[in-house]
């Protein structure tokens, strides 16, 4: 494993005694806790359209964030210059959240970087030459165009990054990590008799380029995007109103992310602003539903060895057989509510304050045959793919937009329908889950979650699931 502390020491001269010095400055005005987050991020992005690679970008950003906690208060400052002078200045600014003499001192720092590595890579994706990455986007373009003559426009994007992060806290813990991340995505437009429709697919994870040379080649994503665009050409208006909805496996797990996941983040619950506040131990879903958040799945986009506060990630049961079990914690909320850490303190970058966030969130498999689930619906909607979602934490209302859906008529999938937003109520939607399939699948590795203006990579998963009642927002 690549040692983050060695990286920052060799490249930027940040020594263990520097870390102690910065923490002492952060605690100099009486703060109860302080931490440092060093980040070095290298990225590559390539974009193709009209069968031309029209752009390629490589870049580097480096910085250090300093946080000080004092009761419920957070002071934060950062520097994109890793000189002693600048980091000390940031530490003194963050320290001002408290006022008074220093009360706590950083205890002897020890490196607690984990021996495990959930995402070993043969070669850092950012160290690979551009040529093989270009080959991936050209292959995706050719496959999408070859899929059907009605595919009139193909756009392909490839992105990779490698982050070195180093967490040091006044509790004496130093934890580093080395985090690769790659993503390939394909957008297609299909045209037929003046009608135009779109399709989108993509995937990746904390993997190297080998990932795209194995089971998930560029052609896999290209054909899926092309297939969706072609299928949409015959789409009819989506229905409007309450009906039975069947969610397909994989990416439709975004339902869990929006309907329950955000509402179980501990900051909202500590402040009693979530529709799930004070509901631990209560029934919030049917007995068929067990929902977990798991940051430890190897190579997944939402996985981390340690979260962005240096806490090892874990598997956390949120809902067990329908009963609400727990919340997702970061250090601040765990301190204030005297809860155990769950490894869900995350942030977009060194310039951002950590908060409780999901990692990979999924519903455990049940024992229904997916075909039986569809057969059980007389008139309803099958939603196989979604383009995104959102939730109002306080009222619990959530939406997600189906990018590929079909009418179910007499137990069979019939016509594809145009894009429609589905809306429901988070604390009650899972109570209406009446069948859970045996086909749990995780998404392909394309999710990005936004909260308070911060984006972090996440994963979702779900088996085929039947919801007895959900409002579908079509026009038909």
């Amino acid at each position, binding site marked *: 494993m690549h040692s983050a502390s060695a990286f920052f020491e060799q490249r930027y001269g940040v020594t263990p005694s520097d870390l102690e010095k910065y923490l002492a400055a952060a605690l100099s005005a009486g703060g109860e806790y302080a931490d440092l987050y060093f980040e070095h991020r290298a990225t590559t992005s390539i*974009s193709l*359209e009209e069968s*031309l*690679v*029209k*752009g*390629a*970008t*490589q*870049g*580097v*950003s*480096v*910085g250090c964030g300093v946080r000080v906690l004092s009761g419920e*208060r*957070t*002071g*934060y*400052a950062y*520097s*994109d210059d890793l000189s002693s002078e600048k980091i000390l200045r940031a530490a003194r*600014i963050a320290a001002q959240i408290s006022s008074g003499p220093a009360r706590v001192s950083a205890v002897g720092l020890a490196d607690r970087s984990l021996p495990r590595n959930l995402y070993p890579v043969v070669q850092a994706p950012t160290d690979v030459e*551009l040529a093989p990455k*270009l080959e991936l986007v050209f292959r995706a373009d050719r496959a999408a165009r070859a899929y059907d003559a009605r595919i009139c*426009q193909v*756009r392909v994007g490839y992105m990779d990054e490698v982050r070195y992060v180093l967490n040091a806290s006044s509790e004496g813990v130093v934890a580093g990590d080395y985090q690769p991340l790659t993503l390939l995505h394909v957008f297609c*437009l299909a045209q037929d008799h003046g009608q*135009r429709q*779109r399709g989108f697919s993509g995937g990746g994870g904390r993997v190297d380029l080998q990932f795209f040379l194995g089971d998930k080649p560029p052609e896999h994503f290209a054909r899926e995007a092309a297939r969706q665009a072609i299928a949409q050409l015959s789409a009819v208006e989506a229905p*409007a*109103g*309450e009906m039975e909805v069947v969610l397909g496996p994989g990416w439709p797990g975004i339902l869990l992310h929006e309907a329950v996941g955000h509402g179980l983040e501990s900051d909202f619950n500590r*402040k009693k*602003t*979530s*529709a*799930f506040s*004070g509901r631990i131990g209560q029934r919030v879903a049917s007995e068929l539903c067990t929902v977990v958040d798991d940051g430890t799945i190897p190579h997944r986009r939402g996985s981390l060895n340690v979260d962005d506060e240096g806490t090892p990630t874990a598997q956390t049961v949120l809902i067990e057989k329908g009963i609400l079990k727990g919340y997702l914690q970061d250090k601040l909320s765990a301190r204030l509510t005297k809860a155990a850490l769950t490894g869900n303190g995350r942030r977009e970058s060194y*310039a951002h*304050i950590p908060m409780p966030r999901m990692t990979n969130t999924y519903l455990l498999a049940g024992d229904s045959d997916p075909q039986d689930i569809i057969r059980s619906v007389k008139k309803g909607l099958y939603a196989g793919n979604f383009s995104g*979602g*959102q*939730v109002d934490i*306080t*009222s619990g*209302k*959530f*939406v*997600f*937009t189906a990018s590929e859906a079909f009418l179910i008529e007499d137990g069979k999938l019939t016509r594809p329908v*145009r894009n*429609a*937003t589905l*809306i*429901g*109520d988070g604390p009650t939607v899972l109570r209406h889950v009446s069948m859970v399939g045996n086909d749990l699948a995780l998404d392909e590795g394309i999710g990005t979650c936004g909260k308070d203006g911060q984006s972090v990579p996440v994963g979702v998963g779900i088996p085929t699931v039947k919801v007895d009642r959900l*409002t579908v*927002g*079509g*026009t038909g």
Partner: protein
Amino acid sequence: MTDLQQLAQDVIASALKSGATAADCTIREGSEFHATVRCGELEQLKEAGSKAIGLRVFCGQRVASAYSSDFTAAGVAQLVASALAAARVTSEDPMAGLPPPEEAGQITEDLELFHEDVAQRDPAALIAAARRAERAAFEFDPRIRNSEGSTFSASAGRKLLVNSQGFCGEYRRTSCSLSVTPIAVPAEEGNAAGMQQDYWYTASRRLAALEPPEQVGRKAAERAVRRLGARKVPTARVPVVFDQRTAGQVLGSLLEAVSGDAVYRKASFLAGKLGQTIAAPSVTVVDDGTLRGGFGTVPFDDEGVRTRRTVVVENGVLQSYLLNSYTARKLGMKTTGNASRGLAGNPGVGAHNFFLQPGSARPEEIIRSVKNGFYVTDFMGHGVNLVTGDLSYGAAGLWIANGELAYPVEEVTVAGNLLEMFQGIAAIGSDLEFRGWLACPTLLIAEMTVAGT
């Protein structure tokens, strides 16, 4: 010449020496301040500054870019090397290039973008303003029992652009905002069911132009309280009124549809519709980069083209797309000075101050004109398909019965097609107010599908 302009010139010289045939370089420097007060107590304080550099190089018709936050000599050398390495492998794009030299230019008069009251802010005063706004929300109604907080943000930034055709421009901007998110709780104790939150905010390039904190707090509280007791309604086709906030989101979709990128890719439902009637005759939409102190005002765009006023839709007829030099070349047109880019990558298209011209009806009059309909005050989701113009959003708001706001509504969707919606605009409010770079008055759409029970 400032130190950063010199640095940008040196970077370009170095790129040209290393084999680039053309290049442009942007440097951005900024400082940010955020203070959040929640339930009367300071909760978060954040203060920092940063700077970064971006370089785009052309090797003939190949283009690539690089960015960095490392301003050391080694960092800059690495920046130039990685941009050039990438430019050796990208494709020849016959349309790639800097804007035509005759398009280069900038507005030289003072656009009132930088204000000392924001740059020389007093943190204690801003925290106090956030506290006052939240207190006003709590005092507005006893059912405001909780809060997601009140945040004061202030920032100052400097942005410069230099290219190998001799363009050199730089400007400074400040901005500040105060937002409040109160929570209305129906019952006194322990029950999370039925809680509602909403927000309101004020924003400007100078502190002195912000609305009073108490006014912001009361407005936010009023919006949250009126959502209490919201219910679903039966599925129906009815007239729909969009308030400023949601009308702005609808207008935002029109903006995406007239953006040159979506048009030349034929990924917009407005591709090929120039000169055609796409909206009701009362609809005029303008993008104006020259409004003094505006959020979208800049002296030049992100390619170094002088900003201007562009009429996009006039009396319902689509008059112009918004273009940068690349999309202009693709469409055989001229740039409208709407290039927009981050540190690195090819420029995209961005609006300046984009707005729908106000009508004469006050919002209350528009609501009074509706016998049975839906007044939408909040959207959820990202339910617009730009290719087809299909729109389907989660929505909340108030039901209109006999011209009166009768009761709150939630957990419903509104759906329609953008082209039909713009053609079906039956009334436009007089209430155009800029709280950002995009603004739209209240709109009445003759008929849309509201899906509920």
